[in-house]
């Protein structure tokens, strides 16, 4: 049955087959692009977290972090 189907099926003309071939290759590149985009998001998250850690290390003990309300008594540092 398969041989009959394949044997009788005429080759699609280029303008007809082209869209299927293009779609298949676009699928491959879309998968890679989506993966690269996800990796870019992860990388930016790692960069942000590293920045936060660096800020925490460079900040003198007792000084509040950006956006944090200053307190009367200096808090005990946990960065030692």
């Amino acid at each position, binding site marked *: *049955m*398969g041989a009959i*189907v*394949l*044997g009788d*099926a005429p*080759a*699609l*003309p*280029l303008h*007809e*087959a*082209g869209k*299927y*071939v293009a*779609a*298949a*290759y676009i*699928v*491959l590149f879309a*998968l*890679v692009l989506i*993966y690269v985009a996800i*990796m870019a998001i*992860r*990388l930016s998250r*790692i960069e942000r*977290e*590293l920045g936060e*850690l660096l800020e*925490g*290390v460079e900040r003198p003990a007792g000084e509040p972090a950006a956006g944090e309300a200053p307190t009367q008594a200096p808090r005990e540092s*946990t*960065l030692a």
Partner: protein
Amino acid sequence: MYGKGLRLLSISTVAAMALALSLVFFYAPLDADQGFLQKIFYIHVPMAIVALCGFIIGALLAIAHLRTRDPRWDMRSYVAIHMSLIFAVGALITGSIWAKGSWGHWWEWSEPTLVSFLIVFLLYATYQPLRFAIEDPERQARYASVFAVTAGAFVPLNFMAVRLSTAYVHPRVLGSTSNLPGPMALTFLVSLGAIGLLYATLCKYELTAKHTRAQLRALRRRLLGEGQDATKPRSRSAAPSVAPGATMSAQAASRSVL
């Protein structure tokens, strides 16, 4: 650690992909039966082969994890299966597009090759939910490894069963009946190599990203103090939660802290 050699691997992959695409569109002759549509063969079949091989690699890495109880092997097995699933999705979609152009419909339920591949895909699609369902990292890794080994053994069995079955419309590739002319066979092998390199590169990227994130988490814990992190509930995840450099004792220690 995992980032070593990543640049060379990435450049090799880009070069191999460029070479494969050049051969596909400028060197390989048009197929007598299917004409230009047959160009899909050069990405569809390699993606399916690489996905199936990736599942088997995942099983072998899971065996290493069960033997050594080293969480790094679980991480590698997870990444191999995770990436194979993505490639399997690609193989299914490109196969459906090819089927539509060649046979006139998107799917053929009476074709063993298609249905068996779908069964393997659906089997592995349960891998992530299985991991997610288990909260304890050690138990999660052990159960996931057992699953990976069992499902991995199913892949070659499935392949052999398909070989023994009657083909309806889907041709059997890499068998005694495949008579690819020289230029087509060369193009196919280069495409297979390029897709294999793409798989290896993406796996390495994934491992590097996970390892970096785990290192960052460990650094944060050290800088902020154990107590501050201990107050946060551990978020459940399907991905292995242990740093790839950690040993089993470190994993147990981190669990007791958290």
